[in-house]
């Protein structure tokens, strides 16, 4: 937060700003002191904002041409692909945009895990982020149903059926969700409505996410608290704007490659077959970004417990600020945590891989071990590490860590004890 009081120069500006301080807000956003040592992993916040806006804009255009009716949805998608001017471009951006959105959000989340960005005083930013992530998964799932292909239909059937695991009221809830006794037209129309609604909820939460971020300011690779503004910070504009812009452009090159050259590689071929309630596909698999959770769901033999495990796998993240007992934020100064961090990354990738495979034999065994380890990491390893781990001395300021000044051990220790 900039400390100085901002006053617009022009008379009109002052008159307007006294009534609605929009200019003060704009000034805050451009002046916002940002740690100068943020690396490229920090550019994904901006990239995610771009992804959200892209999805909303392309989604609006698609909604103008799409027909949410069980008999016409598939045809209307083909109409978009063939006869709407640049409809193919809009649809491929939207479909691949969902994957790009998740790619970026996973990098964003894992960056946070590495540098301890979820720790005090940033717990609220983190929890809002988890809610955004949950809503993203809901939006992605609902959106995948809309083309009304085979995977849409059967994916919807499998996922909504999960609610039937709830004791006593489960079956009733499923019927209520479907609007009937199977996935059908009422299901499609309500899924479309919700798919249209959720991005705007996400947009609102993103505003809160950024607001909550601007109270304590950004974490940074060194993970220490810094004075703002100081020689450790740079104003958001132009330094961070240009850097985020550069990273966004590189991201867009990858994005464009998918859209223009392999637009269907991330989807499933079966979704180009119109939904048929009488024919079940050989393997029902969700999109790649949901695979780790799908693997967790299937690794538990009991349906209800499987659903509980899957939900816990996501919700456990919300408790992370309290499960991680270490006072040190950045993994740079936590030699043991750093290793467990990479094991967790590998664990999630393995879960994703077995999630795409049939749940049998070796795959199932691997899925069970990986699921167990996932929970072990958060429930046992993290709390114990925080108490036992011998951390490295942390520098006093970013400038010191960058310029290679030897960290003053005594003061660092002193500071650490102050933090406690």
């Amino acid at each position, binding site marked *: 937060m900039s400390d100085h009081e901002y006053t617009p120069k022009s008379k009109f500006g002052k008159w307007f700003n006294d009534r609605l301080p929009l200019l003060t807000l704009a000034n805050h956003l451009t002046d916002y002191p940002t740690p*100068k*040592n943020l*690396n*490229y*992993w920090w550019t994904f916040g901006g990239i995610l904002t771009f992804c959200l806006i892209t999805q909303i804009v392309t989604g609006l255009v698609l909604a103008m041409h799409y027909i949410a009716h069980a008999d016409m949805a598939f*045809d209307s998608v*083909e109409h978009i*692909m*063939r006869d709407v001017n640049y409809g*193919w*471009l809009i649809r*491929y951006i939207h479909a691949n945009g969902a994957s790009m959105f998740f790619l970026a959000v996973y990098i964003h989340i894992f960056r946070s895990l590495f540098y301890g960005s979820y720790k005090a005083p940033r717990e609220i930013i983190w929890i809002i982020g988890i809610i955004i992530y949950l809503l993203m998964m809901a939006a992605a799932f609902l959106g995948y149903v809309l083309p009304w292909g085979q995977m849409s239909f059967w994916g919807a059937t499998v996922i909504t059926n999960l609610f039937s695991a709830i004791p006593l009221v489960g079956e009733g809830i499923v019927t209520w969700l479907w609007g009937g006794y199977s996935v059908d037209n009422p299901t499609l129309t309500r899924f479309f409505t919700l798919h249209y609604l959720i991005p705007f909820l996400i947009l609102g939460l993103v505003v809160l996410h950024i607001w909550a971020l601007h109270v304590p300011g950004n974490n940074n690779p060194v993970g220490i608290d810094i004075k703002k503004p100081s020689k450790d910070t*740079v104003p958001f504009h*132009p*330094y961070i704007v*240009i*850097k985020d*812009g*550069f990273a966004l*452009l*590189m991201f*867009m*090159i990858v994005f*464009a*490659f998918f*859209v*223009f*050259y392999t*637009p*269907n*590689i991330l989807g499933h*071929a*079966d979704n*180009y*077959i119109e939904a048929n309630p009488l024919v079940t596909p*050989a393997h029902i698999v969700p999109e*790649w970004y949901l695979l780790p959770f799908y693997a967790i769901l299937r690794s538990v033999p009991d349906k209800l417990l499987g659903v509980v495990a899957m939900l816990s796998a996501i919700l456990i993240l919300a408790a992370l600020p309290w499960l991680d007992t270490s006072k040190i934020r950045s993994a740079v100064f936590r030699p043991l945590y750093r290793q467990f961090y990479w094991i967790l990354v590998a664990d999630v*990738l393995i879960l994703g*891989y077995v999630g*795409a495979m049939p749940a049998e034999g070796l795959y199932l065994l691997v899925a069970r071990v990986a699921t167990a380890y996932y929970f072990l990491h958060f429930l046992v390893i993290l709390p114990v590490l925080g108490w036992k781990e011998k951390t490295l001395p942390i520098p006093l300021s970013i400038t010191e860590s*960058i*310029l290679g000044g030897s960290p003053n051990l005594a003061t660092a220790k002193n500071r650490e004890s102050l933090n406690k």
Partner: protein
Amino acid sequence: MKNFFKIFSFIILFSGLSLNTQAAEKVEYLKTDWSFKGLFGKFDRAALQRGYQVYTEVCSSCHSMKYLSYRNLAEKGGPEFSIDQVKAIAASFEVKDGPNSDGDMFTRPGRLSDKFVMPYDNVQAAQAANGGAYPPDMSVLVKARGGGVDYIYSLLQGYEDPPAGVTLDDGVYYNKYMYGNKIKMANQLSDGLVEYSDGTTASVEQMSKDVTTFLMWSAEPHLESRHRMGFKAIVYLIILTILVYFSMKRIWSRIETEV
């Protein structure tokens, strides 16, 4: 920055490997050069025209193509028949229309705006005529099969006598590329089955390639403009990225931190 790229490329590599292992479990499909693959991939116009001929003379007696209109045959990036040719093609089909002012349905010759005429009135009629199997609509067929064009191309040439021990019911055929090896479509192609107007020899391989090219176009009619636009977009993005990179370096040189 270096670290960033290292980790990023590791993840890309990992996902690439897992895609490959999935593909490795399936049968090796027959390979051929597809002109529409690659950064500048375009359809072979003559192959599309021949492919349309194979579709009309062979496939269309059972398989519909409900998302295609006759006008598409003359559009840019497709077979690009001349308008007069397509008008003649359309007119050679009888289209059901109506009701007229007397309330009666009637048939008339097809027009450019008509959708491809369907071989059967409905799914049930198609099943009844094909021993219970529904010949799938072919408009987006190559996108609806895991192996894509290579799969279709191989399947058309994959008919064999069943290996010893495999018994086939009446109306079921053995195909080494079909999922489960049993297919209800009999082998349709034989050398010289169609007579190509451009003089190309109509071998089974040639016809398979031509009709598969045609199916690729029908599934992705805007493929050519997608490739053209993609190249321009990516070149534009790369140039812009380089410019922004140098601007960034310049701006960050005001402070002592590396960017």
